[in-house]
């Protein structure tokens, strides 16, 4: 055995290999993305990026049905998208072991909400595992596959940003050879796998029996649930990363560490509760364990002293227990220090689109991706951003309400390419079907930029790096019934605005595809850096672009040639024609006119 430092995500990937997974699928989403990326790099388990989480899970369900072990990874909100197959796969059970990794994001480091997905495992009535470090993340995957097959249940492995992105030592067998665990001899099983009502009623009985058996298992399986007896005046029930904070803050206390948190081992909890004077529950986000412990007639202290919002950390746990601050630190520097907030890259193709929209007095339903930054100053041209794909449906709904109120402001939807594939197409079907007339801007930067530049069905490359058929957006839009589909260069402001005006004027739905490869995917400059050819009078027009290469703090425009990518947006805006780019004469002349 060798010890290696792995992040939780790398450990889950290692677990998939050690556990004999045949297949892994995912749709990217922080903090889960590196799980599939790591499995792909290892090159053993077959991997796929799916267009969205629902499809990712359905393919995994198919692999499981056929007898292979499958792992499916997504961020917490992805499980909402995959909830339909997830809840019903619970009734069908599995063939080969099936694990859904839900990577939750307490504190919303990179998410639109901080839902606690343990509730979903409970609602779906499947086994729920919560590792507290990388070793457990790896072990629980291998163990999860066994559990899944033994109890005929999908397993949710619930991790959080801190477990995903923290490193801790993991014991690995350097000689272990990858060998997928298969259940050969697939046979049709109508009663189990075809969820007609008559079959599903029988399956629900099986699900309840399975939960009882899992609970009994959890009462005794020390690899998952264990009591660490210590000082018996304080007993803490905890799970996941919170366990580490409890151990840090109260090294002497008795702890019931839960790894299998649904179904809960009620007998073990009672035994623990009876063995300590004061009982506490320390868990991140919702009182998921606490309420169930209370239902046993025990009286734990929990959310009245530990926060229900945000992440726990050693300080918050200590404060809850009334322990002095752990560190006696240096006073923070109170002067308002300049921040380094996220901005669209210099030369990003999204910039011209939002700049144009900001001048047009239109309502904009936005979506999730790098382009959500178009909602921030100075572009500030997004009215809403809800969840992936919502831009399309919301645009049509908003149009209905605005018109009813006698407001004739046009509504524009804005969606990224990966998001369009994820869940924008069905929205577009709806717009066409129900007679909407809005315009959708499809921002095609050839990647899933926000989550670190993953391939997707529109890029023509698979997760395994093979060339494949790229989704043809124009054909898709035509196929769902959009007749007005056109392309517009997001680096040509005048043409872009003209295209948007024209499409908005048409009394039928339209799509404008704005194509510009993400600057971090293709870093070759578009042209030479922009240069000032006159003494800049400081009118400030070009500052409105919010380009990080353009500094106006001195009152004059100063361009950082190391950052500028030569996109020429500022050149088109300068009312004095003082900005130039070598080899961009055509654009410059246009802006003169």
């Amino acid at each position: 055995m060798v010890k290696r430092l792995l992040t939780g995500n790398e450990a889950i990937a290692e677990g998939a290999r050690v556990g004999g997974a045949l297949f892994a699928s995912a749709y990217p989403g922080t903090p889960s993305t590196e799980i599939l990326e790591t499995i792909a790099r290892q090159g053993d388990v077959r991997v796929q990026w799916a267009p969205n989480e629902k499809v990712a899970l359905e393919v995994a369900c198919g692999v499981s049905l056929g007898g292979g072990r499958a792992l499916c990874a997504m961020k917490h909100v992805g499980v909402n998208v995959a909830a339909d197959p997830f809840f019903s796969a619970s009734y069908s059970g599995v063939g080969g072991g099936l694990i859904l990794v839900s990577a939750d994001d307490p504190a919303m480091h990179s998410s639109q909400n901080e839902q606690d997905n343990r509730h979903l495992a409970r609602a779906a009535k499947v086994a729920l595992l919560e590792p507290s470090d990388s070793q457990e993340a790896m072990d629980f995957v291998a163990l999860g596959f066994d559990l899944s097959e033994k109890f005929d249940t999908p397993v949710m492995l619930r991790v959080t940003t801190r477990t995903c992105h923290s490193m801790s030592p993991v014991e690995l067998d350097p000689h272990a050879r990858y060998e997928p665990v298969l259940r050969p001899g697939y046979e049709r099983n109508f009663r189990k796998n075809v969820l007609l009502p008559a079959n599903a009623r029988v399956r629900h009985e099986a699900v309840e029996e399975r939960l009882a058996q899992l609970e009994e298992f959890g009462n005794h399986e020390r690899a998952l649930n264990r009591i660490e007896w210590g000082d018996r005046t304080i007993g803490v029930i905890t799970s996941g990363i919170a366990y580490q904070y409890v151990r840090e803050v109260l090294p002497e206390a008795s702890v019931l560490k839960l790894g299998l948190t649904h179904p809960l081992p009620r007998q073990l909890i009672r035994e623990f509760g009876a063995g300590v004077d004061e009982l506490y529950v320390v868990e991140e986000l919702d009182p998921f364990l606490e309420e169930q412990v209370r239902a046993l007639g025990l009286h734990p202290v929990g959310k009245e002293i530990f926060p229900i919002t945000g992440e726990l950390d050693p300080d918050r746990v200590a404060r809850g227990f009334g322990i002095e601050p752990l560190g006696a630190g240096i006073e923070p520097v109170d002067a308002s220090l300049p921040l380094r907030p996220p901005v669209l890259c210099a030369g990003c193709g999204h910039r011209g689109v939002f700049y144009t929209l900001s001048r047009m007095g239109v309502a904009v339903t936005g979506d999730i991706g790098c382009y959500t930054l178009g909602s921030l100053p100075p572009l500030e041209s997004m009215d809403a951003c809800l969840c992936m794909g919502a831009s399309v449906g919301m645009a049509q709904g908003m149009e209905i309400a605005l018109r009813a109120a006698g407001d004739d402001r046009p509504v524009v939807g804005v969606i990224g390419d990966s998001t369009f594939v994820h869940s924008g197409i069905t929205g577009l079907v709806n717009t066409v079907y129900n007679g909407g007339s809005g315009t959708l801007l499809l921002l095609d930067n050839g990647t899933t930029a926000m989550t670190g530049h993953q391939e997707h069905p529109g890029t023509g490359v698979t997760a395994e790096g093979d060339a494949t058929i790229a989704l043809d957006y124009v054909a898709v839009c035509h196929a769902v019934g959009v007749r007005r589909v056109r392309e517009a260069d997001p680096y040509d402001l005048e043409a872009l605005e003209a295209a948007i005006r024209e499409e908005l004027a048409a009394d039928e739905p339209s799509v404008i595809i704005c194509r510009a490869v993400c600057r971090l995917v293709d870093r070759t400059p578009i042209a030479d850096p922009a240069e000032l050819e006159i003494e800049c009078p400081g009118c400030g027009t070009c500052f409105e672009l919010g380009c990080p290469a353009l500094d106006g703090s001195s009152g004059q425009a100063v361009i950082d040639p190391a950052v500028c990518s030569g996109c020429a947006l500022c050149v088109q805006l300068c009312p004095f024609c003082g900005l130039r780019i070598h080899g961009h004469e055509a654009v410059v002349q246009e802006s003169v006119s």
Partner: protein
Amino acid sequence: MNDLERPRNVFLTGVGGHGVLAVSRVIAEAALARGFDVRRSEVHGMSQRGGSVVSQVRYGPRVHSPLIARGAADILVSLELLEALRHLHALRRDGILLANEQRITPAPIGGLTVAYPDDPRGVCEQRVDRAIFLPALDIARELGEEKAANMVMLGAYSVLAPEIPEATWLETIATAFRPRFRELNVAAFGAGREVALRSAGAGAAP
């Protein structure tokens, strides 16, 4: 002293793209190679686009939390001065600040740059008893590669961490990066180590 009774808490910070995470990785790997229990965490939201980056490493006989309690860091390693200021309160009162003198002005927002603090070094020195500043960027430039400034800082850190022998550092650096950067990284590490040793010898900090 070559053994630790309690975990050593190292808080690292800098700006995306400048190799903070690489430094924290080498510290974590070297600590593991030396036989310590290790935890390391990172926040790298928008790191590719020049945002603030934070990483924390803890090592010792037994470590649980990947996060350092506020005001409990033994050492704050900062690859940039503004980020050192921003995270000064991570340090214990008797903690050590090890900072690269480099200043990176935040990208202008809407064409406007917020003024960079006047005297970040002075503010640090006023609050931290043991503050060490290194011209890591200049040293790396002399070696022919600006990007190696992070390894200069690592070299300086190694002087403050006698619990990990020099040989372990060198072995870890050798395996952590692609072979073609090995020589440069080792040279930068050595240069940082030397500067820190010299300033220690001269009776300045630490």
